[in-house]
């Protein structure tokens, strides 16, 4: 047995065996252990290893779930029986559907959460699973034998060691791997204020030959609600009739009440010219500009306030959303001014914002840099190519955001459980035409990220198909087949499907002024409630607005969806054709150098993935296809 570290110097007191081990209790780790626990059933055992069990499911940054593109992912997680949507519904304090003025495909559900209630709800759900053991410990080493994972070595808080043995380990290190926080010149090791940094795993990964990278992210300051002058700051309310993320919520929330918690609002303030000048004058103290942070570029879609005043110098002000983090505390999250400037500079510029002259800073903003594993080293199953049975999910793969992490976690947990039971062939890949989660994993394994990866609807070429309203149709039958979906959820799905089918039949049979209702539904000038009224007038039962909305959406996109379906069929051949591991890229005659290099680096799993690599053209894919067939024929001939 070989491993990243010399283990002989430590004596292990005990050993335990698990079907699946999940390292990390963030949003990726939670979905991973939940999915694995669902798939392996009550006979199996899943370990969730975390440095601090009270931090499981914590919202480290923004106290919100969902958004454009992200909300769709939460719906997909829910359709596959996951945790995030349920926890968000139970703890939301302001629900808002974004982009309501636009078509259904690009609407994104989002909610503000009570961040403490959120993590408690997640912890409650995890505790409800009898086959998940939560273990408080720090990972020292990964145990690997002949390129296969066999377990992990842990140190518990009482400094005793333990070895957990398993054929499948899911790593979700988040921002904790060799994490370093920056506030001005001040540097503190750790992935979150007051917490530690994971060093052992990083060493083990390097020893195993993984290529690590370093990324940077940041978080804004938190202010004391009671010290902000709220008068005159415009408010932003949630939706009057909020939609839950999870179809399960109305039946499982206490008293069937959704939303459960008291609803609140956000307020809006802004930066000022004076504040921009101050920031510009202090740029040399910002770690990102002084060169103190040696991370790759930070995310362009979530720039720090330092970035904003430099890149968009002509702007007089930037919006700052003041978002409550909890109903029970006075913490206010300043959305829009992530910063790593020194505390005294932060204190000065915060007081320049309208309403914040006397605001008390509860926590200063900081930047955090952390190790990640360049994602070309995983397959879209999330299993690493280098070590069989080792899965990576979340920020370790270079993504950003709770939802992105959770989506990967679910796939990792699912595949870890399936791998243990049925080997490589049993693992599942979600297609780009199936789910945003599929788009994300495919992007991760075919592109070199230049910044933490965040989902946008424009990343999905089949956006009209991948909607929040049809996530269950797309994924719940698959989830049922894989064992992710419980009976209750399956029943709800079936009832919903039946209602949709019945409504469609009714709409095809009912005519108004010689036109069927279904053909009227295609017209943009006819509203959902109008259609419902027509049915009522005909003496039929008024359908649920959501059911009608779904039908109208399908009807309006029909032509586009047909076109996309044709395109999907056209590509299917390449998407399904696997590139066998015996194929030697160097031996493929005629491949251009650039293409051969990209293929050798990314080791695409399918011809479809190969075609999406930068530097690989259609002719190269043809050559690969020919080489694969030739190899097959040759082996048949010799065998």
């Amino acid at each position: 047995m070989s491993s990243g570290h010399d283990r002989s110097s430590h004596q292990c007191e005990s050993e335990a065996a698990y079907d699946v081990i999940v390292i990390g209790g963030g949003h990726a780790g939670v979905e991973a252990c939940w999915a694995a626990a669902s798939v392996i059933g009550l006979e199996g055992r899943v370990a969730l290893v975390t440095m601090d069990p009270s931090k499981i499911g914590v919202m480290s940054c923004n106290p919100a779930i969902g958004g454009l593109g992200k909300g769709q992912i939460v719906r997909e997680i829910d359709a596959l029986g996951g945790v995030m949507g349920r926890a968000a519904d139970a703890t939301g304090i302001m629900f808002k559907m974004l982009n309501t003025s636009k078509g259904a495909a690009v609407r994104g559900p989002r909610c503000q959460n009570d961040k403490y209630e959120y993590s408690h709800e997640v912890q409650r759900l995890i505790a409800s699973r009898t086959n998940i053991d939560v273990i408080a410990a720090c990972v020292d080493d990964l145990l690997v034998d002949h390129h296969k994972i066999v377990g992990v070595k842990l140190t518990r808080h009482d400094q005793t060691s333990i070895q957990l043995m398993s054929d499948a380990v899911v790593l979700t290190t988040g921002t904790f791997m060799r994490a370093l926080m920056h506030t001005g010149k001040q540097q503190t090791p750790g992935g979150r204020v007051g917490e530690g940094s994971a060093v052992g795993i990083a060493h083990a990964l390097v020893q195993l030959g993984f290529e690590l990278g370093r990324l940077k992210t940041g978080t804004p300051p938190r202010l004391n609600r009671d010290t902000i002058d709220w008068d005159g700051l415009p408010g932003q309310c949630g939706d009057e009739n909020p939609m839950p993320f999870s179809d399960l919520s109305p039946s499982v929330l206490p008293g069937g009440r959704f939303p459960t918690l008291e609803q609140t609002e956000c307020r809006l303030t802004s930066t000022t010219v004076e504040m921009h000048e101050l920031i510009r004058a202090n740029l040399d103290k910002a770690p990102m500009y002084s060169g103190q942070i040696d991370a790759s570029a930070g995310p362009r879609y979530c720039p720090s306030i330092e970035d904003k005043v430099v890149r968009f110098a002509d702007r007089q002000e930037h919006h700052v959303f003041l978002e409550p983090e909890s109903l029970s505390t006075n913490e206010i999250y300043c959305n829009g001014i992530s910063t790593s400037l020194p505390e005294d500079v932060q204190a000065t510029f915060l007081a320049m914002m309208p309403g914040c002259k006397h605001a008390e800073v509860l926590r200063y903003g900081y930047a955090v840099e952390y190790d990640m594993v360049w994602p070309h080293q995983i397959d879209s199953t999330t299993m690493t190519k280098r070590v069989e049975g080792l899965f990576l999910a979340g920020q370790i793969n270079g993504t950003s955001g709770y939802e992105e992490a959770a989506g990967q976690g679910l796939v990792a947990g699912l595949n870890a459980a399936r791998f243990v039971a049925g080997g490589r062939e049993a693992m599942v890949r979600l297609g780009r035409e199936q789910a945003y989660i599929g788009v994300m994993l495919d992007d991760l394994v075919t592109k070199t990220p230049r910044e933490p990866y965040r989902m946008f609807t424009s990343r999905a070429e089949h956006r009209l198909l991948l909607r929040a309203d049809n996530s269950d149709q797309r994924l719940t039958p698959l989830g049922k087949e894989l064992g992710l979906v419980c009976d209750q959820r399956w029943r709800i799905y079936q009832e919903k499907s039946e209602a949709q089918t019945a409504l469609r039949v009714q709409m095809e049979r009912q005519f108004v002024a010689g036109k069927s209702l279904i053909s009227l539904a295609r017209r943009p000038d006819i509203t959902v409630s109008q259609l419902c009224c027509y049915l009522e007038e005909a003496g039929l039962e008024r359908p649920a607005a959501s059911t009608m909305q779904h039908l109208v959406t399908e009807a309006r996109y029909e032509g586009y969806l047909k076109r996309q379906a044709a395109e999907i069929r056209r590509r299917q051949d390449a998407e399904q054709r696997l590139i066998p591991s015996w194929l030697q890229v160097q031996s493929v005659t005629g491949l251009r150098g650039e293409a051969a290099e990209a293929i050798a680096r990314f080791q695409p799993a399918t011809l479809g993935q190969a075609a999406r690599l930068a530097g690989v053209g259609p002719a190269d894919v043809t050559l690969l296809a020919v080489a694969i067939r030739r190899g097959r024929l040759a082996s048949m001939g010799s065998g």
Partner: protein
Amino acid sequence: MDTAATIIAISSPPGSAVHGLLRLSGDAAMEAVNNCLESKIASKWRGTCHSRFIIDPALHSTLPVLVMSFPSPHSYTGEDVVEIKCPGNPDLLERMINRIIAGGAHSSDSKNNLRHAEPGEFTARAYWHGRLTLNQAEGVAAAIAARSDEQLETACLLLSQAFGNWARQSGDEITQLLALVEAGIDFTDQEDVVAIKPADLYERIVDIQKQWQQWLGQYSVNEHHEALPWVVLTGAPNVGKSTLFNALLGRTRAVSSPIAGTTRDVLAETLVLSGPTGPLSCILVDVAGWDKRTGQLDAEMQIAATTAVDRAAVQIACSTGDVQMTQSPGVINVLTKCDQADVNQPLRRDKHALMVSAITGTGLAALNVAIAEAITNLSVSPTRTAPGLMSKHRQALADASKGLTEAASMALMSAQQRQLDHAELVAAALGDALTAMQPLIGQVPPDDVLDHVFASFCVGK
């Protein structure tokens, strides 16, 4: 590569010849051909028959053709293969392909899709269906690589430098518009993002389409020329290229004079040669001399000259014997002005060069034969598939234009508003246009669209 589709391509050598050959392979080959024939062939029938090809059903214009049917599995590709032998006019072959594709598109079954063949696809299919041996497969791979590089090159240079630039510019403009529409979708919760106004979007799309119409007009005028192989005269200034150009044509076209650098432009004329199997057409091109010393040529002319040489099927390298000649395929070395006495006698007896005098006519007949041979040899090489590519490119633009029209009409509907009503559908239509343009500009990954957004807006809270 979509292997279920039926594919079609011109299989005869480029340029005018007595006979042309179209080849189809795939499940829908027989049905697609039958759609255009007066007397149909029976399904799975093997043999050769005469029929008439319906060029234009409205005008009842038909053409005598010879149809050869090779049902699966005993055909070159192992699939159903149909070949149509017809008069070898490049324009005609193009029209017939377009007609067959248009006719085949009525079938809604996607399995029976009919499309232009990819480079090397007939051979690849032959291999996949076990019609080639393992040894031959190596050759196939090399041929596909060679052909696709050619295709890429042609896609980049596409007819002329200007056309290629134009296609890329159009692609960039559409990408930019798509980015503006996407910004209005993905970043509406951001302070700074103002989506493009529908009226502006409409105008910008219409501008693109106007340009396209202009270009397509020019394009179809040049089409005939583009389908023929180019024979380009190269050599130092004053070596006698223009005189030779006139002599080969048998009339005066180029302004030839004894002053070096007289030819300041690219001259192109159709030249008809007598080939081994009948008359052969090509485009004879005279470019400005390569005079690096004088710098007289402006950049544009230099680019025109380089482009012409790049796409030459055959080069006639002219010299008066004062430079060493190199041997390479597709290049005919010619010693000009052999009627004049010259001091460099030893070099002038280069056995690899043709001795020609445009004044006395010496060697002109031999040069004619050499050119005809070089063009005929092209058909043996797997490269030079210009006619098929061109038709593909035209199709690409037509498809892209459909997407633009759709986007424009939606933008027009919201023209009085500040925001687009169906931004996601407008984006889908613009995306379709970019996808259709892929043969011209390559793929535009979503990341490029996002790059545009990030570069122009302050996004992120």
